[in-house]
Structure formats: structure tokens, C-alpha cells
């Protein structure tokens, strides 16, 4: 599969949620509280794209479709795109750019604190999502930086679950999917470690473990 063929339709598909809310706002079909519907909907889609982005590596690994990896940057940028719009609706429609009130909210409301920290961590990832930044940082450091997406995932799910009133079934579903996606990575790490420890090197005596004796 050629990523150049799949990228344009994927880009357009990524804009569909925005089109849905723009159309809904225009035709007044978002219910009695359209501003809340837009704010929450954009937040949902930031989180959806985050989980889709995190699913790329496992999918690539288990399907063998290496071209999937070439779509990851665009998907990741859609996370940033929807998170930025989500934040903007809050700053604009909820607070009307009342900066002291916003600062108070960030300090006093844990679900907003967590959301803001998550967004702040997204900014450097979006800023370094280009070939120049990778070259500048070096692949290893770039990768280390971009691992913060795992923390962003946890913060985003926490942000969601602290916002709901009583029924946490939907945040729990997101937590479950995130748990699987992060759990897989942890599992691969354990496997890789075991493999490395078990590895034998040619020309060296085979000694797998060093016994540690604890004296009492």
C-alpha cells in the first residue's frame, strides 16, 4: 500500500468531525445546549485520535503493514488540532477570555488542571513533528520526547473521568482501550528485556545469570 494514496482521503476523513459540528451549529441541530455539545464533541475527538494514533504501532506490528507507520504523524497532528479547538471553545465560550478566572480554574479544578497539563505536553510534540526537528534532536532524543504521549493519554482519560457527574461508563471504556494499548507496549518491553538477558554472545562463556546471595 502506498501511503501517498491513503493520506489525502485520511486527511479529509479527519476533518469530518469538525464538519459535523460546524454543520450542526449552522443548522441548529446540536440540541438545546449546542456550545456544550461542541466543546465535549471536540474533546471526544481529540481523545479518539489519540487512541487511534497509539493503535498504529500495535497494528503495524501484528498485521505487518509497515506503511501504517507513515500515517502516524498526520493522526497525531489531528490530536493536537482537536485538542486546540476543544481548549479554544473553553477559553472563548465558557470563559470569554477572562484570564484571571481561567487561571483560577486551572489552579482550583483538578479536571481542568489535568487537561491543561495534557495540552501543554502536546505542544512540543506538535512542534517537533517534522523531519527538521528529528534531525535536529537526533532520533533517540526525539523518540524519548515523543514517549510523553503515553502520559498525555493517561491525563486525557483522567480529565474526562473527573468531569462526568455519576455515570463513568464511557471514561472507563476509554481507560480500558488506553490500558490495552499501553499494556501491549509494557509487555513488549518485558519480552525484549527477557530476550536480551537470554541472549548468548559468540566467543564468550555461556553464563546467563549471576547468582546473588543475600546473607542474613
Amino acid at each position, binding site marked *: 500500500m502506498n501511503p501517498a494514496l491513503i493520506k489525502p482521503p485520511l486527511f479529509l476523513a479527519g476533518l469530518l468531525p469538525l464538519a459535523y459540528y460546524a454543520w450542526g451549529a449552522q443548522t441548529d441541530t446540536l*440540541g*438545546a*445546549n449546542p456550545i*456544550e455539545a461542541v466543546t465535549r464533541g471536540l474533546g471526544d475527538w481529540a481523545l479518539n485520535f489519540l487512541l487511534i494514533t497509539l493503535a498504529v504501532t500495535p497494528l503495524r506490528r501484528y498485521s505487518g503493514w509497515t506503511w501504517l507507520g507513515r500515517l502516524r504523524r498526520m493522526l497525531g497532528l489531528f490530536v493536537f488540532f482537536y485538542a486546540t479547538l476543544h481548549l479554544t471553545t473553553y477559553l472563548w*465560550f465558557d470563559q470569554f477570555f477572562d484570564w484571571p478566572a481561567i487561571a483560577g480554574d486551572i489552579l482550583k*479544578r483538578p*479536571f481542568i488542571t489535568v487537561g491543561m497539563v495534557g495540552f501543554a505536553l502536546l505542544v512540543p510534540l506538535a512542534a517537533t513533528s517534522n523531519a527538521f526537528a528529528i534531525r535536529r534532536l537526533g532520533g533517540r532524543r526525539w523518540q524519548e520526547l515523543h514517549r510523553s504521549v503515553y502520559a498525555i493519554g493517561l491525563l486525557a482519560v483522567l480529565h474526562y473521568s473527573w468531569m462526568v457527574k*455519576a455515570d463513568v461508563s464511557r471514561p472507563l471504556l476509554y481507560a480500558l482501550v488506553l490500558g490495552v494499548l499501553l499494556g501491549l507496549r509494557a509487555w513488549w518491553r518485558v519480552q525484549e528485556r527477557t530476550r536480551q538477558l537470554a541472549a548468548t554472545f559468540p566467543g564468550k562463556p555461556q553464563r546467563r545469570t549471576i547468582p546473588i546471595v543475600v546473607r542474613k
Partner: protein
Amino acid sequence: MLIRRPDDIAPSDITPRPLFERRREFLRLSAGAALAAVLPTTHAALGPGRPSAYSTSEALTPLKHVAGYNNFTEFGFDKDDPARAAQALRLRPWTVTIDGLVRQPKTLDIEDILKLAPLEERIYRLRCVEGWSMVIPWLGFPVSTLLKQVEPLGSAKYVEFITAAQADTMPTLRSRVLDWPYTEGLRLDEAMHPLTIMALGLYGDVLPNQNGAPMRLVVPWKYGFKSGKSIVRIRFTDNEPHTTWMKTSPDEYGFYSNVNPEVDHRRWSQANERRIGDFFKRKTLMFNGYADQVGQLYSGMDLRKYF
């Protein structure tokens, strides 16, 4: 968004509720010729109701939002769930039992309750704990009218309101999210306050199911969740009722739950609200703007402690 108040025309004239929604009830009742006489009282529009000095002159929230954006958790947790799911609510027979610390407990049929007193139109602000608000033209009478049907004992200090729990019609009853049946409570003087009403209708007609048919409490100076829907039992007690939301999250929902812009919800601010239909938020008023009428009920009380 600009909402104009219609002049000189009863809201029910503009928005008649389709008889279609009541087709099953209609068939059931028309089956017995003897029951035909009941039809006018149950199915004709209830309104317009006597005008009340307690009504606000603010712009009304359109019926489609009043009946389309609801918290009625027995029928789902999304705002548009109740409008769909509550159509299954079984409305007849419906009785309301008044018991507890009373000399003679009573069970009243909803048809008799409808005839207890002439209905008034009370146009009240409704402020939800979630930070949105509406203006709703209720039809009802003071709760005190209903409570006077029994003789409360001197020891009665509180009134508990217990709402319907129909396992076969309410989809979320199976989940353990809240402790069903949904119960609420008021101090006796709050319940007897002239602003506190039992609503039997809105917009000149019977209550839509999703708004708490056939009878619900309306306490306009408290957050909306205090106004229990589809009430089946009223109990006089001598100690503070332990309400559903208090059991669910005691540090977020207090017994009083008076609208108060200075006392935040534990997770969000209560200083502002979005009036449904408005673009920007407005300031929330102390006791939802009813401070002159109810402020004295709480004189000397620390409203942060008794939130």
C-alpha cells in the same frame, strides 16, 4: 440568540402537544365506555392556569428544549435519552402515598390530586447543578396544599420525596450508578414555602413524561436535582433524609443544595450559568434570584457548611 416572549397568546396555543403521544392511554381509556367521563380531565390541556405573582417575566425556554434536554437518570444519562426512553413510563394507575409522622396516612389517586386546587401558572427559573438554566412555565399548586391533606405530627421536621422506580420501564435501574428509587428531601418549612410547588403540567398541558409526569416537585431556589420527578410517596420524618445524590457523592451534594454562586461544586464553579438558548454565560444569582422570598429560611446558617 434572541428569544422573544410571545405576547397575549398562551404558550400552549403556539405549541400544542400531539395527541399521538398519548395514543395507548387513549385506547385503553376509550375501551370502557364508563371511563369516557375521565377523558376530559386527563387529556384536555390543563392550562392556562391562574397567573401568579411569583412568576418571572423573563423569556421562556422553548418547549422543545424544556422537553428535549433532561436529566432523568432512570431513563439514561445523556440529555436526550429521557425524551425518547421516558415514553415507556406507566402513568396509570398512579397513586401518591403520604405517610411517616402523620396522624392518618393517606393514599391519593392522581386524578383526585389534580382536583385538589385550581392550577396556577408559575414561570420559574430552573438552575441545574451542572451550570445551565431554563425558564419554565409550570402548572401546579403549592406543595403545602398537598401536605395539608394529612395531619403531620408535631415531631415531623423534614419531608422526604420518593420517586417512581419501575423496573420494567426504566432502563438504568439495573445499573448501580445511583441508589434507586431516587429520593429527595426538604426541611418542613422549605416544603411549606409558597414558592415550593407540585407541578402537574408545563406550557399549559400535562407534564411530558421526561419532565416527571404525572407529578413532580419544583423548588426554584435549589439546584434542579432537588426537584424530584414522578413522585409516588411523600414521607414526614424527624431527621434529615439521606438523599440519592448525598449517598452517591456526599462531599459534592449537600442536603440543602441551594443555588449559591459563592459556594462551588467540588469540581466546578457555580458562579456562572448558561441559559439554554444563550451564547454566553450569565452570572448565577443567590438562591437563583429568589433571595427576597427564601433568604430568611437560612438566616444565621453557614451556607458553606450547610451546602
